[in-house]
């Protein structure tokens, strides 16, 4: 019985795990690269979300200290013959349609909630006549119409 040479089989056996190892390493490397790509995109997602959150916070965060408290301020004028009286001023963009006064026994009045500060204003009677508030100081005016000033305190 001829001796069987075990060497080729042994070599083949030794080679086999090595070849398998090569594939495993290549696969692992590919997997690692894929994971790295995914990780970069995940970081991109988080960074984008963080930047968006930061921008949103900057835009929405109230500047400086908390918003000052608002206070009720009553505006009133005697105009018994008027059919309509509007309050117009710094607090409503000088828009006649925003704050119409309510009549009660010849007196027209409206109450607004205002933050502390200095406001210039006037009454507009029947959509045409500008009237200053006789009870508050006259205000500086560049446009030649009667204007009053009020200071709201804390």
């Amino acid at each position, binding site marked *: 019985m001829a001796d069987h040479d075990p060497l080729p089989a042994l070599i083949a056996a030794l080679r086999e795990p090595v070849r398998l190892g090569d594939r495993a390493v290549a696969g692992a490397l590919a997997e690692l690269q894929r994971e790295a790509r995914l990780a*970069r*995109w995940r*970081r*991109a*997602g*988080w*960074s*984008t979300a*963080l*930047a*968006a959150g930061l*921008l949103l916070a*900057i*835009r929405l965060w109230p500047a*400086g200290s908390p918003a*000052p408290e608002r*206070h*009720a*301020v*009553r*505006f*009133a*004028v*005697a105009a018994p013959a008027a059919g309509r009286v509007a309050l*117009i001023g*710094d607090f409503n*963009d*000088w*828009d*006649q349609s925003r704050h119409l006064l309510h009549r009660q026994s010849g*007196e027209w*009045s409206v109450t607004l909630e205002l*933050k*502390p*500060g*200095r406001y*210039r204003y006037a009454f507009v009677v029947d959509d045409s006549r*500008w009237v200053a508030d006789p*009870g*508050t*100081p*006259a*205000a*500086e005016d*560049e*446009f*030649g*119409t009667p204007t009053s*000033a*009020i*200071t*709201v*305190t*804390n």
Partner: protein
Amino acid sequence: MRPALGCSALLLAAGLGAAPLEAQDPRLAARLPTGTRLAVERLLDSARASGLPTEPLVRKALEGESKGADSARIVSAVATLGRYLGQARQALGTGADEATLVAGAAALRAGAQPARLRALDSLRARERLAVPLSVLADLLTSGVEPERAWTTVREMATQGAPDADFLELRERLMGTRQGQAPGLPPAAERPPTAAPLPAPHGPSP
């Protein structure tokens, strides 16, 4: 460019790039003729670049429109207010808030000297300057002799008088029923009170 860096930079650039759009106030677009609006927006951009509040300038433009003023007058009024706001900020410092600057600008427009704003700033906490400045503006606008108005306001500030005392001083001085501040009865129900000014103490600066 890495995705993370690229996305963040793009977003930040978009966010920062959106800032100039704030200049296009929809209220101005709705109420002012195009030429007037563009001129006012240039003034707003300038104010914004100087760190000044723009809302008072927008309100001034809207006031002019509401009062039927022509374009030149509106632009001039906005520019003038911007100048006074800048002077007020220079006198009162960058920490002065919008309400304080508006009151300071009113006082300056009424004839107060910037040095007096600075003096008041040194006497009273900056967050408590709006009312004294507003009262000073009212007194000057109503024709009270400037030295007397200033000395009285300064004296009250030196004594640490509360805001309500400044308003009461104005009532007594001007005989108005101004008293619509919180805690006081409705203004129209308060009878006018007139009393002489308290005697000023100390020399005027």
